């Protein structure tokens, strides 16, 4: 049993290593900051991939925004080294500190912070015209179309809704053709409806542009939906960093991160069942049935399975209303956020799962690492 657990650990490390290889060399972001304020200290050492969306995830006060501001040069860390895709932006030991306006970055603030004295068009031009024409890689039409703001160009910021403002803010940052896009909880100031209005634009950004994004968020759903890579921050320190799926499935994290435990699964729509109005989503190790999706077959879809929505059975129970059953091997069992519960990490043929069950059930079923079980998935939260 111990042997198997070790193998599994080795497997997850393998997944991490694969990431590291991709970040080595000159491509990627290396950020090391130490900042001290009365009552707060940030001490992080990050090695991030030079592409895709990296989420800085943590609760308020975890230092994620400070970290982002250090990357932007808006905050000057007492001790800092920052290298972005081969460009040195800060090295306090050598006295290097490139001021913010000389760093090729885009920054989207929590509140869009458009210049109130300029129209939407002039706001967008503000950054663009300060970048040499030869280095512009994002075209005006591309940014305007991507964020759907064509009809807003001649309005003043005060006449825009919160969601529209944020879209203009994102387009404004993109038009400087940044080598790195920093987003500080761009959806936090918006209500749920506006969030859903913007999320598709952020996904398109991710799919259509080759700009690496550092995305600060405290919302697990946003992270699960947008990120490829996550950095978990707690009290100014990095608790974990790595690929999204592997990192969210870890149980050795502070309870702050496991109380809402769950996994993210990347799936592909494989079949639509018109009779029962269901869609089948395939992923390594199995599939689930969900209510009919509007997307076409072959469309990639992420979903989140909360630990509380997974129960475990010894045998395949066909006499149940739960349709989604997956064979899975128990990897580890740890105490959950309450003494009454445990979290069980499982491997369903390559896809990690976490189940939150009572300690009593765990003992009665004899759930230990290495045991083959059936995971019953009561609900999946589709992200997209």
């Amino acid at each position: 049993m111990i042997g198997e657990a070790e193998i599994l650990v080795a497997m997850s490390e393998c997944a991490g290593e694969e990431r590291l290889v991709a970040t080595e060399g000159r491509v990627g972001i290396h950020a090391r900051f130490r900042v001290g304020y009365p009552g707060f200290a940030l001490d992080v050492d990050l090695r991030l991939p030079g592409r895709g969306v990296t989420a800085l995830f943590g609760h308020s006060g975890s230092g994620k925004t400070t970290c982002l501001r250090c990357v932007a040069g808006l905050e000057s860390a007492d001790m800092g080294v920052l290298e972005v895709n081969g460009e040195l932006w800060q090295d306090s030991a050598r006295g290097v500190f490139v001021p913010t306006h000389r760093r090729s970055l885009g920054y989207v603030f929590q509140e869009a912070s458009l210049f109130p004295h300029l129209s939407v068009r002039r706001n967008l031009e503000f950054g663009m015209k300060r970048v040499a024409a030869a280095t512009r890689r994002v075209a005006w039409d591309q940014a305007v179309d991507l964020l759907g703001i064509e009809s807003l160009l001649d309005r003043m910021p005060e006449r825009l809704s919160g969601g529209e403002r944020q879209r203009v803010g994102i387009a404004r940052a993109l038009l400087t053709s940044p080598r790195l896009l920093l987003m500080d909880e761009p959806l936090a100031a918006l209500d749920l409806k506006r969030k859903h209005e913007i999320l598709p634009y952020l996904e398109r950004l991710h799919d259509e542009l080759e700009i690496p994004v550092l995305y600060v968020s405290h919302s697990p759903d946003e992270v699960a939906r947008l990120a490829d890579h996550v950095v978990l921050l707690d009290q100014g320190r990095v608790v974990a960093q790595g690929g999204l799926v592997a990192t969210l499935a870890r149980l050795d994290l502070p309870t702050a991160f496991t109380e809402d435990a769950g996994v993210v699964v990347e799936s592909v729509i494989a079949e639509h069942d018109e009779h029962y109005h269901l869609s089948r989503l395939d992923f390594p190790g199995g599939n689930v049935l969900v209510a009919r999706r509007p997307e076409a077959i072959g469309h990639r879809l992420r979903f989140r399975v909360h630990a509380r929505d997974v129960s475990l059975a010894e045998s395949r129970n066909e006499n149940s209303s739960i349709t989604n059953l997956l064979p899975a091997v128990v990897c580890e069992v740890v105490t959950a956020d309450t003494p009454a519960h445990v979290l069980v990490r499982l491997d369903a043929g390559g896809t990690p799962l976490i189940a939150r069950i009572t300690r009593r059930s765990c003992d009665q079923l004899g759930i230990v690492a290495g045991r083959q079980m059936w995971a019953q998935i009561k609900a999946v939260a589709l992200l997209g």
Partner: protein
Amino acid sequence: MLSLDSIDLAAIGLTLKLATVTTVLLLAIGTPIAWWLARTRSRLKGPIGAVVALPLVLPPTVLGFYLLVAMGPNGFVGQLTQSLGLGTLPFTFAGLVVASVFYSMPFVVQPLQNAFEAIGERPLEVAATLRAGPWDTFFSVVLPLSKPGFVTAGILGFAHTVGEFGVVLMIGGNIPEKTRVVSVQIYDHVEAMEYAQAHWLAGGMLVFSFLVLLALYTSRLKHNWRG
């Protein structure tokens, strides 16, 4: 009907010239001071702010007295101007300008400082992330956003200089067409029992001051309305 004689008109012309030159100089000098006061975390912020505000509470004669001493032949400013071949400043128009700049300083610096503080840190950070350097940011973001502050500062600086009396008397004396401004001219008329002429000038000052303040308050109201 009595109208204004040529000496009165000269006094009016001189007053407007003094106020214009002083306001232009003050906007140029006051802007960096106000910017510094609005942005600094230095411990000198308190003392410098207090010095700038001193003319608000000091009797004009006190300010005028010290300026007279400093700019006089034995004062350090006087020594400097003499060594530069400029002579001494008291009883000249230039001396009046220097004194007025000090005297009206808080009326220009404080509205500007308030305007700069109201802008906050965020627009400057946004501008920096959009590749604007500090000077660029000042001219393309700070100036437009603090325009109402500049209007207020200009109007107050101008009006306050028009209304000064004590400092002018201490520094400039009462030389027709050189240093005799309207407020001093009114004083002379009253001394000479020429009440009718005093009325014309005093009434003019009253109407002018009221119109200036009216313009100021209605423009502020409009600004607030726009949010």
